């Protein structure tokens, strides 16, 4: 699946719910189901500090495709991490750099994109793109 196909899939899944609490239940479920984070990667340089919660993000390049691991101490943020990794893991640096992450807005999580720093979503996306750029540069 392409990045956009995955985004559309997520939008579809969320569209079943009108109610905020249901949406967040789904997000929490996704957070709970996120692959466990390899403790060796829980280090300073993988840490993104939002104002209130912490996010760890680790990236590797395997066969030209990026694989991410992520974690957060807040379960809703972890759910967002899960969504981001589902959309972006397994893609090339170029695909990631070009990605327009419209699903966040569409599923009603736009507020998490605001730069008011109450969570690290903006920083997460920045970090993922920075990883992609770094690997791209390394490849060339």
């Amino acid at each position: 699946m392409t990045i956009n196909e995955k985004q559309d899939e997520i939008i579809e899944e969320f569209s079943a719910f009108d109610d905020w609490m249901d949406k967040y239940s789904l997000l929490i479920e996704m957070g709970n189901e996120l692959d466990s984070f390899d403790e060796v990667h829980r280090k300073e340089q993988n840490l993104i500090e939002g104002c209130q919660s912490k996010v760890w993000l680790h990236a590797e390049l395997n066969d030209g495709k990026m694989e991410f691991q992520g974690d957060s101490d807040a379960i809703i943020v972890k759910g967002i991490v899960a969504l981001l990794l589902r959309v972006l893991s397994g893609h090339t640096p170029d695909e990631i750099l070009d990605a327009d992450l419209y699903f966040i807005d569409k599923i009603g999580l736009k507020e998490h994109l605001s730069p008011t720093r109450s969570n690290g979503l903006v920083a997460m996306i920045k970090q993922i793109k920075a990883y992609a750029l770094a690997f791209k540069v390394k490849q060339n």
Partner: protein
Amino acid sequence: MGLNIQEIRNDFPILAEKVYGKPLVYFDNAATTQKPLSVIEAEADVYRRVNSNIHRGVHHLSNVCTEAFEEVRRKVAGFINAGSNEEIIFTKGTTESINLLATSFGEHFFSEGDEVILTEMEHHSNIVPWQLLQKRKGIHIKIAPVTDDGELDMDAFEKLFSGKTKIVSVTHISNVMGTINPVEKIIEKAHSFDVPVIIDGAQAIHHLPVDVKQLDCDFYVFSGHKMYAPTGVGILYGKREWLEKMEPYQGGGEMIDRVSFSGTTFNELPYKFEAGTPNFAGVIALGAALEYLKSKNLNDIWDYEHDLFEYAMEKMKAVPGIRLIGQASDHTSVISFLLGKAHPFDVGTLLDKLGFALRTGHHCAQPLMDRFGIPGTVRASFAFYNTRDEIDRLSEALNRVGTMLG
């Protein structure tokens, strides 16, 4: 007498707002309070009818504005029972008031190695200004610890005094736990060592009657926006004898007597500390907030809020998995808690979607978070326009959120 809460709620237009289609429940009063219509209108009215720069003006509007501004100084002095109007300095907020003190008192009375005593429950605004002074002057900061109940450890506090102690700066009420500190005792103790005391009244001034003469504190600071007045207004009360010895903080218009390049002389109190055009419209609206508070009677407000708090405590204790941070015997209407193992951010995010405005995080009191070994709390803080019904809804919501995050 008691308060008519429905009438009071009607005075605050924002309380009729909806959030995500749900009625707003505003429980973030410790961060900032809402404003009654009379305050909103008072500020707008300045701009609609009399706006003009104050002091030194020869024309009518300037005199009207100046009178109205100075009238509020008198009202503030009366509200806290200050010895004179000249002891009331207008700043932009509690934070600025404390910075002014840390600089103007600090630069004058501190030498390298001298000490300030703070507590573990201070707001960052009563910590960082002293750390900046520490950096400039090599002073020491001593910290009075907090007990497991969230009270000040008075025995430990008393032991911190030394011949080098130059000032004590303590919050009247903890913004995280609602603990009311025994400020009379603190002041008495400090004075027995000839040490002056700053009381950070940001969380106290609108909850309980404050009498600076009876307290005998040397300085008392607070913010307008936390007492139903507009943003951008703060107050610094200081005993004249201290204020007169202190150097000016900022330089500019109005705080001078005469300026020349060969030498400038400063104006008398309180103007010496009020450089530049003040937020006079905000100050005039603060006057309306004081009138509003007086019309409701602070003792009645205290009774009502206290009752609300007791009710909330009972309800909160019944929420499965709740952990209360701070259970001091003397407290105002602030409750900090954690829900099971859930991150405060998660709890706050879900409550937000249910229409509740609460604050989560460290509440600008990281040392206190460190003391309790927690990253933050969820904080519900009540004002006299809140109701038992809103608290019932919060407890239901917490049950639901607890299950979701379970």
